C-alpha cells in the first residue's frame, strides 16, 4: 500500500494537476502503487462534508503527504489549507502560486474592491449587478503564498512545475529522503552564448522575434538578455529545463520568471533591475516594471501603487 496522500487546490488553475499527469509512463504506478491517494478533488470524489454533504465542518482525511497547489485568495482556501496542515505530516507547496503567489497575486498590485466592482460592471454585464456575496467565500485582503499562512515543509515552484521534479519529490517523500532540486538560476540550465551585458543600454519589448538561425540548437543563439530582451533567467530559479534548455528559451522566447526567485526570499524585481542598472542599462526602458513580479507578488512584494501627498522635502 502506498503512502497516503491528499491533494488540494486553492487559488489555482489546475495547471499543476495537469503537470502531475504529465509525469507520463510512471504516472500509473505512481498514483496506484507509490501513493495511496485519499483525497483529490480533481481525480476522486471524496467530499468535505461527508459523501452525502450532510456534515457541517470541512474535513479531509489524515495523510502522510499533503500536496497543495494555488495561492490563498479567499476564506475557503484558508480553511482548506489549515485543514490540510492539520491532517498531513508533510505539506508540499506545489507550483509558483503556492510558493510565491503566482499570476493571481498580480491582484495584489490593484485596489481589490475597485477591481471587483469593475469586473461586475463590464460592457457585457447586465447593469446594476452587485458583487456576489451569498454562499460564496469572501476574499482575503490580498493573495497569499501558502507559507504566509501555515508552515510549509517543502516547496516546488513552477508554472507549471516540471513533471520530472514532481516525480522526484513524490518519490523522495515516499522514500523519506530529501529531494534533489535545482538551486541555481535558469541561466545555469541555459546553453545560449553569453559574453556580458555591458553593450546593451535599453531593453526591448518582445514585439519582434529574437535572433537565431532556424533549425539550429539554442546553444548557437546569443543570450536573449544580451540581445536586448528582458530575460529574467538570471533572477529566476531553474527547473523548467527539459530537453537541454529552459522551456521558454527553447521556444525562442525570453524567460518571464515563472519559477519564482532564484533565492527563495529573493526579490525578482529588485534583483532584475539591479542586474540591469549595474550593467548600465536604463531601467526606465522596462515598460511596466511591476509585472516583473508577476509570479512572485505574494509575501507583500507587490502592493497597490500609492498616490503620494506632496510633502515639503526636509532640508
Amino acid at each position: 500500500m502506498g503512502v497516503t496522500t491528499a491533494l488540494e487546490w486553492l487559488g489555482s488553475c489546475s495547471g499543476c494537476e495537469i503537470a502531475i499527469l504529465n509525469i507520463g509512463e510512471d504516472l500509473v504506478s505512481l498514483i496506484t502503487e507509490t501513493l495511496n491517494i485519499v483525497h483529490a478533488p480533481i481525480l476522486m470524489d471524496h467530499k468535505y462534508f461527508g459523501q452525502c454533504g450532510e456534515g457541517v465542518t470541512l474535513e479531509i482525511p489524515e495523510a502522510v503527504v499533503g500536496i497543495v497547489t494555488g495561492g490563498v485568495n479567499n476564506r475557503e482556501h484558508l480553511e482548506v489549507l489549515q485543514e490540510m496542515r492539520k491532517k498531513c505530516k508533510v505539506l508540499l507547496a506545489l507550483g509558483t502560486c503556492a510558493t510565491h503567489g503566482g499570476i493571481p497575486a498580480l491582484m495584489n498590485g490593484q485596489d481589490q474592491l475597485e477591481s471587483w466592482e469593475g469586473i461586475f460592471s463590464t460592457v457585457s454585464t447586465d447593469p446594476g449587478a452587485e458583487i456576489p456575496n451569498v454562499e460564496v467565500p469572501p476574499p482575503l485582503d490580498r493573495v497569499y503564498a501558502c507559507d504566509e499562512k501555515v508552515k510549509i515543509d517543502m516547496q516546488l515552484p513552477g508554472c507549471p512545475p516540471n513533471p520530472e521534479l514532481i516525480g522526484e519529490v513524490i518519490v523522495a517523500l515516499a522514500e523519506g529522503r530529501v529531494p534533489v532540486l535545482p538551486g541555481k538560476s535558469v541561466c545555469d540550465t541555459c546553453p545560449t552564448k553569453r559574453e556580458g551585458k555591458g553593450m546593451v543600454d535599453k531593453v526591448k519589448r518582445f514585439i519582434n522575434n529574437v535572433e537565431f538561425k532556424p533549425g539550429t540548437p539554442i546553444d548557437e543563439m546569443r543570450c536573449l538578455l544580451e540581445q536586448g530582451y528582458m530575460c529574467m533567467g538570471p533572477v529566476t530559479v531553474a527547473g523548467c529545463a527539459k530537453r537541454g534548455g529552459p522551456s521558454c528559451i527553447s521556444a525562442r522566447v525570453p524567460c518571464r520568471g515563472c519559477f519564482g526567485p532564484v533565492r527563495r526570499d529573493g526579490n525578482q524585481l529588485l534583483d532584475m533591475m539591479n542586474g540591469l542598472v549595474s550593467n548600465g542599462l536604463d531601467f526606465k526602458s522596462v515598460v511596466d516594471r511591476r509585472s516583473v513580479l508577476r509570479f512572485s507578488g505574494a509575501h507583500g512584494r507587490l502592493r497597490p501603487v500609492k498616490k503620494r501627498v506632496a510633502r515639503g522635502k526636509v532640508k
Partner: protein
Amino acid sequence: MTLSEITTIDGLAGNFTVTVEEAPRYVDQEKCIACGDCTEKCPKEVVNEFDAETGKRKAVYVKYPQAVPLKYQIDADTCIRLQKTGACGACEEVCDAGAINFDDVGRIHEVNVGAVVMAPGFEVFDPADSGVWGYGTFPNVITSLQLERYLSASGPTEGQLVRPSDGKVVNKVAFLQCIGSRDENLCGNGYCSSVCCMYAIKEAVTAKVNSPGLQTSIFYMDMRTHGKEFDQYMERARETSSVRFVRCRVNGVETDGTSDDLRLSYVNEEGRQVEELFDMVVLSVGLQTPKHALELAHNAGIKLTGDNFAATTDFAPVQTSREGIFTCGSFSGPKNIPQSVTGGSAAAAAVSDLLSPSRFEFSTDVSFPDEKDVSVDQPRVGVFVCRCGSNIAGVVDVEALAEYSTLLPEVVYVEKNLFSCSQDSQDMIEERIREQNLNRIVIAACSPRTHEPLFRKTLKAAGLNEYLVEMANIRNQNSWVHIAEPEAATSKAKDLVRMAVARVICSDSLKPISVPVMQKGLVIGGGIAGMTAALNMAEQGFEVHLVERTDILGGNALNLKHTWSGQHVPTEVGKLVDKVVWNEKIVIHKEFEVTAAEGFVGNFRSTITGKDGSQKTIEHGAGIVATGAEQYIPQEYNYESITRVVTSVQFDKLYELNEVHVRKAKNFVFIQCVGSREENNMYCSKVCCTHSVQSAIALKKENPNRNVYILYRDIRTYGQREALYKQARKLGVIFINYELHGKPNVAENGQVINVEIWDHVLHRLLRLEADMVILAIAVRPNGDASTLSKLYKLPVDGDGFFQEAHSKIRPVDFSVDGMFVAGLAHYPKPIEESVAQALAASSRAVTILSKTKVSLDGVKAIVDEEYCDGCALCVDVCPYDAITLVDRVADDPDGGKLIRVNQAQCKGCGICQGSCPKRGVNIAGFTMKQISAQISAALAV
C-alpha cells in the same frame, strides 16, 4: 638597544665600528612582565619628565603606557635603594618575576656597521632660564608641551584643562609664539622652529573641543603655516573654532598680584597699547638640539651649522659632513612629522645606496606560528573593549559595555584594556587567544583604518588567521562624536559591538595572495625630484625608466639660481643630469608622456607616447610621480599692462642678464602671496618668501642705496632660513605687512609705478614709487595632474596637487599600492625637501622592487561555485576586467558556466557582488553574509 648612547664612531663608510654605552636598567628585561606591582609599591615619587613636569611618577617606572619595549626601569638618581645601600628595596620584594637587579651595571657594546643614521631628535627650549615669561614663577604659565599633556586623555588631568595653581577651569588662554625661536637676545636661537605656529593652532582647537566656551588667543609675529593644507586648517581654526590671532610680540607676563590670573600688555592691531587678563598662558616653546646630541655630533666628528643643527646640503639633505653617516628628523633642522618621516625614508635610501651590494646579507624573515584551522570549529569570540584612556571611557560606560558583550552569541571572553593598542595589551590578547582558545576577535576601540593592521599582526602572532579580527569603532565614530550623550553613546557602542560580533562570526580565514614583481622602476618627470629618485633606484641596482615630457632634464630647477643656503643650482643640476645620463641602468625617454596604464603593484604596464606619436610599453613593479608644478601667471597688479611689473622668475632672469630697467631702477617693490593663500588657492607656496628675501639681499648688497620693499602677509622664512630674513632687515630691506582684505594697489604713473598699501604699524596709507614691482608668484599644480591621476587612479587634493596616502605617516605613498609621489607634484617645496622626498619615494619603491614577489591583500572577489551559474551579469561591471565566463567543467560546454576572477587584477571593490542576484560572488572579508549579519545585528533590539 634602549638606555644606550653612542660614544665613538671609528672607521670609514661601509665599515664603521661604533661604541655603544648601555646604561643599567636595574630591571631584567627578560624577566619583567610589566605587571606594574613595583611601581605601585615604590615609595619614591618624582616629577614625570614625560608629563613635562605636570605629573608625578615613581622611581621605578615605564616612561609611558605605549613604550616599547614595555619594560620597567629604575631611575638611579632618585631610587632610595640605589642611593643608600640597604635602604628600601620594596620593589624587589613585590616582584614575583624576580626582575629587579640593583647590582645591574652598564655595558659597552661594539657594533660593526656599514652606515650610521643619526636621528637624536630635539628638545624643547626651557623658558625658565629667562625670567620674562614668568615660567617657573607663575604656576599658570606653562609650556606648549605641558599643555599637550593636560589635553591628553592619558595626561594628569585626563584632558580637562584646569589651572595648575587652583584647579580652576580655564576660560581664557593665551599662546605666546616664538618662545626660544627667532630670538637671539633671550635664548640665542635665531632660527624659526617652524612647527610651533601649527601646533599652537592645533592645541587651541583641541583645547576648545575639550572645554567648550574656552577663549583662545595666539600672539604671533608671523603665522608660519606653510605645510600642506595648514593654511586651510588655520582658516578653519579662525572661523569654526573662533581662535583669535593677534599679531604682536608680547614682551612680558605679569600677575595682577591679587589672583593667579596673568596680565599681558601688548600693542593691538589698532596700534594702541592694551592690557588683558588670562587664566593661563601657554609658551609655544621652540625646538633645539639637545646637549647629548651635540656631544654625539662631536664624537662622530660631523659638522654643525651655526644654529647647532647637523650640516647638510640642499642636494644631499640627509648626508652629514662625514661620509657614511646620515641624518634625519630635527637633528638637521626643525621639522614637522611628515618631513621627519620623509627624512627617515630618505636616509634609508641613502644608506641602501651605499650598502646595496650587501643587500639581504644579514636579513631574516619574521616568522609567525603555523595558522590554526578554525573553519570547522564552533566560533569562540573574544571581545576586547578599549578605554583609550578616557577617550572612550570618558563617555561610554565601558563596564556596562563589557558586561553586555558577555551576553552576545558565541562570545566566550571579554576583557577591558586601558589601551588595546599598547604593546602589553597586544601580548595579553595573544595570550588570551591561546589560553581561552579564541578563534574570532572583536576589538572595540578606534578605527580599523588606522589600527586593524596592528591587531591582525597580533592574531598572526597567536596563530590565528589575521582576518578573523573585527573592530568596533567606538571612539572616532562614537565617544568622540557624542560627548554630551553618554547613554546614547553607550547603547550605540553596544550596537557596534553586537554588529562586529555578528560580522566576525561569519568571517573566514583568508590567504593573502602573492604575485611576481617586475623589478624595474618607472619615474614620471625629469626634474630634480624625478632624477634624484631615478638615480637612487639605479644606484641601488634596479633598472629605471625616466619619462620626461620636454626635450630637456631639469624641470623647474632650470629657472633657479641659488638655493636658500646659497648652493648654485645650475651647477648642481648639471652634475645630477650627468649622473643620470651616464648611469646605464637608467633609460631616459625625453619628449614622451604616459598615455595609458594598467596593472597593479609589482606588475604595471605603462604605455608612453612620444611627440612623434611613437609608442613604447614599459613594464614596471613600482612608479614614482614627480611631474613637478607650474608657475602662476598673475591676473592682478596690472601684470598684463605694466612692463615693469614682473614675476619673481622673470626678475631672476632680468637680474642675471643685468637688464637695463633692473640696472637703472632705484626702488624695488616685492609683493608676496601673489596667487597664494586666497579663496580658491588657500595654500602657501612655501618658497616665495625666501626667494624674495634672497633677491632683496642681492639687490641691497649690490647697491645699498636702492630702496627695496617687501610687501608681505606673513614672512615665512621658516627654519634656519630665518637668518636670511634677519640679514635682509639688517641690510635695510623694508618689510611692510598687508592683510588679505587690504591688498596693495599697483598703477602706472608715467615713469614710475605707484604702489599703495595700508601700513599697519604707522596706521596710514602708504604710497611707494617703484621702478620695478616683483610679484612673488604662486606654485600651481600641473595642469595634466588629473590625466595622470585617472590613468593610475591616483587621488589629487582640493588644490590639484597629488594626495599622499596619509599626510603624516605615509607622506610619499599613494593609496594605490606601488605608486609614489615626490617633489612639487605633491606640494610646493624647496629643493632640499624635494630631494629628500625623492629619496624617500625611491626607498619606498625599492621595498617593492627588491622583492621577487609581493603579497596582495586577501580582500578579493571569490566565486561561490554553489551559487554562481554563469549568468554573466557581473562580467561587464568589473572595472578591472578581472571577471571572465568559463565552462564549469573544463571544455564541456554542456556542463554549465560560471565566472572566474583574476585574483591579481581584482581589487576587491565588490561591484560584482553588488550586482549578483544569487550571491554567486563574494568579496572575501565583506561577504553578503557578513554584511547582512551586520545589518540584522544593527537592527536587532
